[in-house]
């Protein structure tokens, strides 16, 4: 390598210093800065004992809850403050409510063109005699679609929390849930069983009636589903899990909810899509008052009913034993 300047001069240049620093052959600080290794930190025994003692004292002072003045003051303050705050909130809301339009007055802002159309042309447009059903399942079906999924997702969170998937306990023994569950309850209670035998069929049939008649009179999927769920819970209480397992397992619930929600979703997708794109819907409304009328409402009611019944029953069995 040819260099224009001699080595001794080159070693003084900045570029040589930088190069040697990068190579690691020379540390820029060595020889120019005084460096001293720090001694390791060590504590003598006396301060250690003192420190431990202080720690212990501090801990006792903090965790001695019964005699802790701060906590006691806080507790008293907290309860007083809670009551005061709730009273304040209640008063404020009551004052605000008193300024609202008076209830049932014909001039109220609520009585506008929206409710007018629901009442006057609800029957022709939805084909449902029960205007409320027409409103929730046809005019505002998107909200109800969301609402039925609220039920579904609530069931799923309960499944996450309470479903027992482990069949063995910590020591590898089988967990016999059925036996544990029955210890504190009368088994084969004759009175309950006889009553259930009489009551359960009418309850379930009544539930089905309420669902199917949702577009004709008071009722619908939510109320009918709740009735069916109550019937199933009564049956379970009287006859135990062995009997219900014959027709209601986890798989049954899954298939039921998927079919019902899928059916709801697809049916409503069709009507949302055709409605938004101004395509004529092919679903006939039928004659108002007949059981097969009002377009999709009957099907949607059945779907909602199935979801609600499944949700009720699932909640009960999850809280009862954590499995179907």
């Amino acid at each position, binding site marked *: 390598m040819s260099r224009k300047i001699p080595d001794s001069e080159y070693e003084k240049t900045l570029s040589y210093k930088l190069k040697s620093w990068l190579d690691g052959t020379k540390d820029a600080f060595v020889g120019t800065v005084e460096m001293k290794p720090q001694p390791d930190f060590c504590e003598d025994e006396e301060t250690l004992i003192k420190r431990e003692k202080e720690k212990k004292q501090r801990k006792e002072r903090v965790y001695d809850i019964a005699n802790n003045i701060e906590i006691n003051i806080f507790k008293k303050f907290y309860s007083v403050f809670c009551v005061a705050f709730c009273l304040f909130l209640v008063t*404020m*809301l009551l*004052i*605000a*409510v008193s*300024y*609202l*339009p008076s209830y049932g007055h014909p001039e*109220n*802002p*609520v*009585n*506008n*063109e*929206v*409710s007018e*159309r*629901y009442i006057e042309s609800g029957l022709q*447009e939805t084909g449902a005699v029960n205007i409320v059903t027409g409103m929730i399942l*046809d*005019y*505002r*079906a*998107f*909200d109800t*679609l*969301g*609402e039925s*999924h*609220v039920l*579904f*997702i*609530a069931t*799923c*969170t309960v*499944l*996450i*929390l309470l*479903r027992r*998937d482990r069949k063995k306990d910590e020591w590898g023994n089988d967990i016999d849930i059925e036996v544990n569950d029955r210890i504190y309850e009368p088994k084969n209670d004759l009175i309950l069983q006889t009553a259930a035998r009489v009551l359960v069929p009418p309850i379930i049939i009544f539930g089905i009636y309420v669902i199917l008649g949702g577009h004709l009179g008071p009722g619908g999927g939510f109320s009918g589903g709740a009735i069916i769920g109550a019937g199933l819970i009564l049956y379970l209480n009287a006859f135990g899990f062995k009997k219900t397992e014959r027709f209601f397992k986890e798989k049954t619930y*899954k*298939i039921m*909810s*998927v079919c019902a*929600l*899928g059916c709801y*979703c697809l049916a*409503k*997708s069709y*009507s*949302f*899509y*055709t*409605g*938004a*794109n*101004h395509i004529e*819907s092919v679903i006939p409304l039928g004659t108002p008052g007949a059981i097969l009328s009002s377009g999709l409402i009957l099907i949607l009611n059945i779907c909602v009913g199935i979801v609600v019944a499944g949700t009720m029953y699932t909640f009960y069995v999850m809280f009862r034993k954590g499995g179907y």
Partner: protein
Amino acid sequence: MEFVRNFPLISILLSLFAGPVSSVLDKKKAKFLNLAVIIIIGIMSGFVLFYVLGTGQEYVYTMGHFPAPWGNEIRVGILEAAMALFFCVVMLLCVISGVLERDSEIEETKHNLYYIMVNLLLCSLLALIYTNDLFTAYVFVEINTISACGLIMIKQTGRTIEAAMRYMIMSLLGSGLFLLGICFLYSLTGHLLMSNIKAQAAILQASGEYHIPLLTAICLMSVGLAIKSALYPFHTWLPDAYGYSTLSSAAILSSLVSKGYIFLLIKIFYRVIGFEIIKESKVINVLFVFGIAGMIMGSINAIRESDIQRMIAYSSVAQIGYIYVGFGLGNTAGIIASIYHILSHAATKSLLFVASSGITDASGKSRDFFDLTGSGYRNKLAGVAFTVGSLSMVGIPMFSGFISKLLFAQAAVENRHKILITLVALAISTILNAVYFLKTVVRIYTPEKTEVVINKGFQDVYMSEQKAKSFAMICLIALNFFLGLFSEPVVVLIERGLEMFA
């Protein structure tokens, strides 16, 4: 009508439908379905964004055969489409990043339940973004709350169940107040559709009739949504919920769930009540005060925390405070800054959660501050990612956090009365941010003695072992740099969207 116009409806229904379907699938198929749904919805939102940018005006999509005040409708503009696209991208990265954690932390049979929660959460976020009806918004707020609870407690330890309980109580209180607010508004205006309520509210304001109930409704809805999005005095549920849940859940909760509620609040300000009435009502001043308190107290709490995940969670409180300060400034520039901060915080906070899980992996899963010494060398990518996220949070130029702080400062200049306090609070909060984030960065790049590493059994972590997490981290770093370096088009997009919004 162009077919693109149907995409918002299709994306909502697709994610809604994917929920129940996941319940009958096994773990692998449910995961695949979930990823496919998020990707498809992201692509569709991209198309919608281009379509709306092309036509330059928003459009109304009727849900069903009945027009708006009678039936439901959704409304699509630039801001909505951009938000949907951004949420999909962040959610995809969050879900991908936590694959390994989910395998070890969730019971084998409950994986599909997790994907149900994620699908329905996405659905509710999309519905909150697009809806033009207050009651629809309430229904999907419910779905959002319940699925967020599920996401927290899917990892079943005492801590998460306690956190989920707290979250449920606070969040239901928020929902209740929000519902009460809707009831008040309905009985005053007789409408649930946002545009009609706005017209009626303007009439009421002009005539001075029903002044007190209108004010009460605004207060109830603001406080309800503030509780749900963890504004400072209502933040007590936040550190446990973010700190102990599984990685994907923490990232999704911090970057998306609270942002959905904030977006809904912006919607209420602009579309339901009208920003002029909100300004006159002085509610934003209250939000401003709480926002300032949150900016400072959140950071102080984060400094006192020695658990890294909880520290990042507390930092969220401070960042939510920034967003509410933007509202409190009461001008359009403030709202633009808030929306930009929603994007920047979502990108940065999810990056920080993923990176912190990366560096704890290299420290034998210990989350204690002192065990993290030198972990930046043991897991190189996570170290870099954490540094990028920290610098962005502190607000160093080139990173996204700088731009949002700049926008906040600019917005503060326009407001004569609040300029001083905003700038001082911004400065203090930036210094406090620097204290705890840079402290951690220095800690993870301080070499640990070899014998300690061997004694505690810390392992080096390589990219090839954690492909999914590395991919997510690289994408989030890129997103951060994108927001930091090319902020101009994003800000213009937000401005145009906000004009369309009002």
